[in-house]
């Protein structure tokens, strides 16, 4: 059985966020919820300033606090290492959300996609309402609803349960890469089986010294970061007193 992991090469990352928007398409993710997200920081003071960007997502931890704290086993580990959620078992207690040290689990406080449920029309007789657009396009709640998401998880998650990144388990089952990996124009996301010594992720983790988010907590995350977003050259110096 493979153990899936992701390596994110920050030097290759250009901070464009195509990963996060592609994730919205693939997984029918509601507005305001970010299965794929980022941490940004501007460091320094003018003119010695740089902007830094770190893509984030569920870390699919081996020792996942969200899973340990779930009273109904709705949040669970798959054999391939993916931290998966079953909305049918979820009672909406949000323990997982509170236990996750990465802030990547989101609770659905409302029916998803309220924008697309709206029946109002901007110019009477000349434009559609969002709901009508979805109906005319043949979608489901969303005009661009992806039915393939529904193969392993509710295509759109109901109100009162949590949701988060699944490493696109429905795609992996078909031998396809997660949507964010496919969408990354910079090839900054490398996905694969970390238990396979010849996999690209293992090769990279052997070549570079990786780091993981909040490693000290012992969660054993399976999203690894290598290299730096801004590997700038500079004139050598010893500083001064």
């Amino acid at each position: 059985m493979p153990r899936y992991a992701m390596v994110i090469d920050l030097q290759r990352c250009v901070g464009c966020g195509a990963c996060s928007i592609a994730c919205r398409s693939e997984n029918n993710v509601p507005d305001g919820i970010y299965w794929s997200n980022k941490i940004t920081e501007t460091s320094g003071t003018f003119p010695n300033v740089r902007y830094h960007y770190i893509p984030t997502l569920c870390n699919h931890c081996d020792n996942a606090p969200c899973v340990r704290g779930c009273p109904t086993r709705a949040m669970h580990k798959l054999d391939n290492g993916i931290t998966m959620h079953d909305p049918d078992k979820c009672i909406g207690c949000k323990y997982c959300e509170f236990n996750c040290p990465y802030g990547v689990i989101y609770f659905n406080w409302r029916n998803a996609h309220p924008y697309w449920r709206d029946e109002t029309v901007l110019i009477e007789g000349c434009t559609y309402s969002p709901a009508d657009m979805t109906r005319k396009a043949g979608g489901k709640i969303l005009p661009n609803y992806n039915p393939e998401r529904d193969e392993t998880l509710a295509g759109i998650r109901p109100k009162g349960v949590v949701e988060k990144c699944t490493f696109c388990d429905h795609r992996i089952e078909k031998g396809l890469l997660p949507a964010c990996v496919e969408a990354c124009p910079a090839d900054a996301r490398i996905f694969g089986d970390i238990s396979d010594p010849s996999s690209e992720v293992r090769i990279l983790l052997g070549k570079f010294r990786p780091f993981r988010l909040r490693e000290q907590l012992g969660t054993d995350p399976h999203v690894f970061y290598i290299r730096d977003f801004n590997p700038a050259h500079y004139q050598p110096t010893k500083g001064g007193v």
Partner: protein
Amino acid sequence: MNANRNKRKTLMKDFFDDIRLSRRSFLKASTAAGAAVALGAGLDPELKMLAAASGTGADEMGQWLPATCQGCTSWCAQQVYVIDGRAIKIRGNPNSKVSVGAGCPRPHLAIQQVYDPDRIKTPMRRTNPKKGRLEDPQFVPISWDDALNTIADKIMALRANDETHKYMLMRGRYTYLRDILYDRMTKIIGSPNSISHSAICAEAEKFGPYFTEGLWDYRQYDVENARYILIWGADPLAANRQVSYYSKVWGTVIDRAQIAVVEPRLSATGAKADVWLPIAPGHDGALAAAIAHVILTEKLWHRDFVGDFTDGNNRFVLGQQVSEADFEEKHTHGLVKWWNLELKDKTPEWAASKTSLPADQIRQVALDYGRAAPHAISWVGGGPVMQVRGAYASMICHALNGLVGAVDNVGGTLAPNKVHTQDFPGPDAFMDDIANKGKKHEKIDQRGRLAFPALNKGQSGGGVVTNNVADALLDDDPYDIKVAIAYMNNFAFSCGQPERWERALSKIPFSVHITTNASEFSWFCDILLPNTHHLFEKYGYIKSQGNGYQHVSIMQPIIKRVGDYKTDESEFPWLLAEKLAERGFDNLLRHYKTYKDPETGKEPTNSDEFSLYALKYATHKLWDPALYEEGDKFSGWEAFAKVGVSNSAPYPFRKRWGKMKTKTGKFEFYSETLKEALEQHAAKHNATVEQVMEACFYEARGEMAFVPHYEAPYTAGDPQKFPLLFVDHKSRLNREGRSANCPWYYDFKDLDPGDVAGEDVAKINPLDGTKFGIQTGDRVRLTSPTGTIECTAKLWEGVRPGTVAKCYGQGHWAYGRLASKVFGKVPRGGNNNDLIPAVYERLSGSTVRHAGTRVKIEKI
């Protein structure tokens, strides 16, 4: 929810410490490289492309179909995943050597454009005869037949009165089927007024390359072989051009090359650069002059391209004139003249006083850049050039490529490769006396007048002066316009001082807008026609260059149309031609019938066939093996349509050395080509070149007009009253100002460095925040001499003190429910163009976007 938000905030705060403190190697297992077997290895090239084209994995419900993204002018080849005629998602088309299977955030947003509920679904007619910003047009739906009959009647009335020149066609975003509507239809009706949007894009960027190396075009950059990349006011990782390709390779490029970014605000590309040069806006020419000075005094020019002193001794010494006889040039012209006229005194110390950059930093950049010759790119973007005095900045920044021999060279700046598309049949045989007479009138935009040289390809009045059309209309100078058709443009939003357009458009008695959304421009029109979305719903093709190739990528209808949309550049003109024929004027329809299907020889009988045949006709040489020239080869139309993109042959490096399309055939540091163009323009007006310079607000007099040089910026606004310089920039989410009605635009707005999700922010340095009593999150009012906007303040270290940086794209008061705060009334955020005066870089006709105005900021 709050808990989560707080947690995320805490996480952000301690995260960067985390990286430093908690790195632990976790895996020590040795790894063995696995040899990946490439998809389709062993197949012939076309079969490989087809394999990648269909790309449908086992168990996938839909199909990946080829498409082209025109969200910016990168024009990338993409693929759309379609299930039952519905677009689900987008990815890069792996068959393009230009966009190399990559994309960016923009194509994904296109999904929310095509299914935007606020897209107009039917032709519409205005019922309120009064036109104005405060007048609700009171649109009602009408049929295509009604709409076309009305338009045809209006055109026939012009023809009956010998007033066909009072017909105007305005073009915004186009495909290369454009000539059907833009050129042929306008000419056959009998008008000179096909007005493109080009001058609000970046024409000034083409000025420098044209008058140095004879190239009126955008360039491609061989970044993978470069050792230094000096970027002027361009942001290739976020906006224009080939964002996909540059994103794909940048992680490798920054290993090999030093990258310096010249821009007053920290851009996406600046964020990953070695050197950020936050220049005082408008002084780019001074920095370029100092770099050139250092390259010459330090003898770093590329001798294989430029040549050398006859005795090998460098006489380029600070302040000293050099004799032209002492230097033997190879592929360049006028180096010594340039030194004597402009460069000899332009030290880094001098430039420091203009640019507010440290002299030692300027010197270091110049040395590093020069030492990387010839693999040293000087990449000229819109920043330094879309300015009142930007033409010479365009020249001097681009001229650095000449000094280091990067022009047309490995690791340098390249021209587009040749691709073998073909023009449509000519219109002349179909232009009657009325048309020939009408076409002879002066064009509406006043191009070619003394103060509007618009020297596209060196021709006086050769280029458009888009934004001046509003003033021409307001002044009825040269005449009034009675019938206007516009497509995929929004000049009442996208041009500086758009309020002029509101008044100008209100004056036109009959105007038609072919558009996807009821935009600011539409508000003043009589008929709106629902357009198709380029990525999913129409036939078309584009040409785009990058990675040492040019591709031709096509658009095809690949999803079910939800509304009654028709394609601007092909279906609409055909249908209108039919209506005109019904009225006894069949010249246009007869002309369109000459666009025969190259496969069958059949002439088109309806708008669908016409659209398809036009595309097949224009791309005939690319897909017909009997006409094969070079680049990708296909077995026929069907195979090409399935792959969706054709690549040129690889780049022929250094082929243009000594054969440039300038007057001397060389790279001109002293531009004989510009001299001739300016003298011709002056002679046309019985004027002198000096008078042309004066009319165009340039400082150059005498020989200075013919060499690349620094000019002080020309900026509107009294510094006492308007203390901050306004810095406009583009968003990596902007689909040319058309994505502001997409929910994702707001959720991801913070992908632009310094910006905030859900907000439209004016970014100022914290020092200025203190000075003006403004904090992050404050509502603020920005006022320039020409307008006022309201938005949110953001204090950010990535902005030069004394400037306010704001991203273009928001501030719509129409377009849709999300784009505007109250549709038709109140803008959401602020439109930068309200602040920017309608001024020009007149030598190219370009609209000014940068260093154009000063503003004041007030807390509301």
